[in-house]
């Protein structure tokens, strides 16, 4: 498949935004259980603004993927059958939740609405955060299922796709939370950094598993089934036209095999071991800048990861577009 940067930025930006929101809410829950020091409302409000900016950036990038962005509102209509439609619905809901969560913190709506069993004071931020968490996970599933649902792209048609999108989104979000805390000089760098490392390792496990799976994949369709001729030796003489077409642009990456391998190594280093090492070193030397570097490096790697995700998917229609006479 052709790796389109609109979709690469959409999936990586909203992944980081979702992860950052989850990190903020996780921090709040830990503080509620007195496992972490209480943070001032600014921490959550500004963090939510950052998460919202990432989500909005992803949404903006997605418009560049459309031929007719002015009709994008129509995309919400087929949620019964289309994962793309479901994503179009869930993304604004998540953005609304994050906005409301940040607003509630910013305006100090932290008076308990009810207190459960005299120990758990339930305020607006907790409820909004819980809704946002639900929405965030639903969005991870919707985004990943857009790809995992297409059974013709066998590299994508696997639960590992959902695992990768979820873990890598959470990893980059927690990494950003660690960077944000480091920038603010909070005491939460180690907390967010630890969870970022855990998510990164989980993401590495699922990404390596999907790489191993893809290596063993045997394409279901062959040129024999494509034209229905039973012969071991079939070669295309011409695809029927000399120039390019949508079919030769959208479904081929037009890169050398070496480029693909190089990008694979690039992201395998930048997404997994390097940020983990940087977070570890930052913890030891208490550096305020290394977590920021860790996030930026991992995000750069994730762009490569998503590029590779598209480029390595082989579409069966390519069997029909092998040769120009």
């Amino acid at each position, binding site marked *: *498949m052709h790796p389109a940067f609109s979709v690469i930025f959409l999936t990586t930006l909203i992944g980081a935004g979702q992860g950052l929101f989850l990190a903020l809410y996780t921090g709040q829950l830990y503080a509620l259980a007195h496992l972490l020091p209480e943070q001032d409302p600014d921490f959550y409000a500004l963090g939510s603004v950052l998460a919202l900016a990432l989500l909005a950036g992803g949404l903006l990038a997605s418009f560049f*993927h*459309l*031929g*007719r*962005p002015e*009709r*994008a509102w*129509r*995309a*919400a*209509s*087929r949620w019964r*059958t*289309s*994962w*793309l*439609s479901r994503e*179009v619905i869930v993304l604004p809901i998540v953005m609304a939740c994050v906005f409301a969560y940040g607003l509630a913190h910013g305006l100090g709506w932290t008076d308990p609405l009810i207190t459960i069993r005299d120990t758990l004071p339930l305020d607006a931020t907790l409820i909004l955060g819980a809704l946002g968490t639900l929405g965030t996970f639903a969005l991870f599933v919707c985004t990943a299922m*857009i790809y995992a*649902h*297409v*059974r*013709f*792209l066998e590299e994508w048609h696997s639960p590992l796709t959902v695992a990768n999108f979820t873990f890598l989104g959470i990893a980059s979000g927690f990494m950003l939370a660690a960077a944000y805390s480091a920038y603010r000089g909070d005491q939460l760098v180690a907390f967010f950094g630890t969870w970022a490392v855990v998510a990164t390792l989980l993401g590495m496990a699922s990404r390596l598993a999907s790489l191993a799976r893809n290596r063993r994949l045997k394409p*279901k*369709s062959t*040129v024999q*089934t*494509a*034209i*229905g*001729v039973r*012969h071991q*030796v*079939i*070669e*295309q*003489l*011409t*695809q*029927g*036209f*000399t*120039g*390019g*077409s*949508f*079919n030769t642009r*959208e*479904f081929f990456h037009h890169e050398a095999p070496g480029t693909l391998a190089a990008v694979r190594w690039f992201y395998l280093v930048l997404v997994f071991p390097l940020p983990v090492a940087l977070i570890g070193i930052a913890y030891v030397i208490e550096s305020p800048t290394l977590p920021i570097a860790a996030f930026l490096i991992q995000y750069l790697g994730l762009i490569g990861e998503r590029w590779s995700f598209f480029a390595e998917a082989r*579409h*069966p*229609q*390519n069997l*029909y*577009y092998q040769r120009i*006479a």
Partner: protein
Amino acid sequence: MTQYALVIDLNVCVGCQACVTSCKQWNTSGWAGPLVDQNPYDEEPSGTFFNRVQTFEVGTFPDTETVHFPKSCLHCEEPPCVPVCPTGASYKRADNGVVLVDYDKCIGCKYCSWACPYGVREVDAQQRVMKKCTLCIERITDGSLPERERKPACVLACPTSARLFGDVHDPASEVSVAIREQGGYPLMPEWGTKPSNHYLPRRKTRRHLDPDEIIRVDNPLRKEDLTTYTDEETLDDVTW
């Protein structure tokens, strides 16, 4: 229930591209706006087509066979491109089974093209919406046309009658009979998309000649022939 479809006889197709050009001509001049080309007479030409004729070589030289292979939307009975459409622009007509795109609803997200294993959907670079074969829906449903013209442009243009058009759900239709009696098959059956269009396989034309078909042994003239022959050529010496 009607399911319109094409049956393409690979044994007859000569790869002349008449169906490609007639399709382009008809569908670029119609109600839905042009099928736009970019640089048609220049370097790197590109454009939108509903129908392509490709050529494959089967076997190794000298035992090769050239297969011309016209490819357009197969109007699947289980079209995978339809449920993935987020806007409902891609749909399958209930009354005749033709898979269509509503160009006024399409947002050009290209998701349907990912969900088609046959690569028969193409984005129009100027209108920025997805386009595909309509089986010339405005022709085949036009009651004012005489019956024999109520067919897709490609079918009317084919000089060798390699393309048949009809209702594959009607067991007595020309296309159903052709599929049944000449081994019609669908493309990529492994995906369960149940394409309505079928292809008729190549058939070897072999002629068996008995020796007595070449040298006539029972020349009726010989029996009553009283002529005395002296080496000149007679009818018996002629190879038929």
